[in-house]
């Protein structure tokens, strides 16, 4: 397992994995969308608006799951000083931001017809917005610091500071009175969603997970390649030659 932490071996492994995860993700999203929008009944109270949940809930889970991935990667950066962990961190942040945005956006679309408001500052909504801002902060931090190792350390510290928000998001609906309903799936006493509505949710969640894996692996590969280009350019520059960056720029100009 650990031998694939070697970037070159990882490049090969990721290259072989990506077609499979992509095919699984796209296949499942097709099945999941069909089940969500055509193959499942409307809710007894919400009517057709319940279908927003099949996008909203998996996005929310992904937003939290990706933060978990980034937290492990941040530990890899700070404790084991591993460059692959740096790349995994950097590659996950924009994906996490995207899923969090989808969660907030679809939640707002559901909130207007159901609650009667687009947005309320309750504990669940606010803590999710904080997560979105943390993701954006991490993306900005990566772009601010030029030197990859220093950027990785700074981002890892911010990621670990932000991790305290994760239990707040999960338990906000239990700790305080919130407008947002309590958990329906991962709760004591089992899910409170009928199986005909739970299956599309499960398939969509699996589909989102595979799509994330695909995009994450691709982004890590890009990051490793970008670092190689950077290193080769610097070596070339120190020898006084035109490095790969200059060559690439020359080719596109």
């Amino acid at each position: 397992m650990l031998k694939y932490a070697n970037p070159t071996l990882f490049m090969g492994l990721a290259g072989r994995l990506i077609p499979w995860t992509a095919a699984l993700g796209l296949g499942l999203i097709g099945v999941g969308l069909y089940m969500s929008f055509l193959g499942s009944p409307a809710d007894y109270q919400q009517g057709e608006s319940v279908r927003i949940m099949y996008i909203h809930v998996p996005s929310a889970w992904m937003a939290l799951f990706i933060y978990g991935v980034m937290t492990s990667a941040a530990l890899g950066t700070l404790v084991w000083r591993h460059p692959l962990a740096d790349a995994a961190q950097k590659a996950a942040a924009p994906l996490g931001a995207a899923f969090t945005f989808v969660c907030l956006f679809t939640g707002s679309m559901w909130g207007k017809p159901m609650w009667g408001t687009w947005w309320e500052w309750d504990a669940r909504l606010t803590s999710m917005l904080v997560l979105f801002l943390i993701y954006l902060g991490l993306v900005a931090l990566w772009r601010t610091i030029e030197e990859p190792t220093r950027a990785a350390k700074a981002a890892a510290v911010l990621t670990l500071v932000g991790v305290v928000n994760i239990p707040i998001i999960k338990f906000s609906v239990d700790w305080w009175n919130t407008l947002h309903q309590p958990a329906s799936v991962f709760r004591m006493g089992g899910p409170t969603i009928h199986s005909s509505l739970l299956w599309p949710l499960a398939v969509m969640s699996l589909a989102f997970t595979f799509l994330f894996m695909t995009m994450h692996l691709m982004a890590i590969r890009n990051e490793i390649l970008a670092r190689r280009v950077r290193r080769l350019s610097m070596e070339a520059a120190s020898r006084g030659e035109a490095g790969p960056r200059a060559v690439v720029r020359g080719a596109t100009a």
Partner: protein
Amino acid sequence: MTRKGRRLAMIGSAVAVLAVALGLVLFAMRGNVTYFFSPTEIVEKNVQPGARLRVGGLVKEGSVLKEAGQKITFLVTDTTRDLKVTYVGLLPDLFREGQGVVAEGVLDAADRFTATTVLAKHDENYMPREVADSLKKQGHWQGEKPAAQK
């Protein structure tokens, strides 16, 4: 302890300290973090008349009265205490008797609540209509009841 172990322990304790600090802050601010108060909490907190706040609970069965114009009165209950709410305006689709509701407005001296906004609160139950109907028919209905009764 190895250097890696030391680094891991340092990170672990830093996050733990941060979590405790944030926990204390949120505990101290719990009155502000909470989105609404139940009718019982409003009595217990001794809220002064004229204060602006949100009250949440269930719309008491049989308490909804529609008057002239869009004026509506109903009781918000947490099954222990009720609070009479007056509201003029449009109601969300999910508003109905037995359903969760959050009203924002002002408490007056006679312990009546004049709402400026009424929001419906959805519970954690999701099911198709046929299932809801058959559960009601068989007397296994669990929905639209306050948490305290579950």
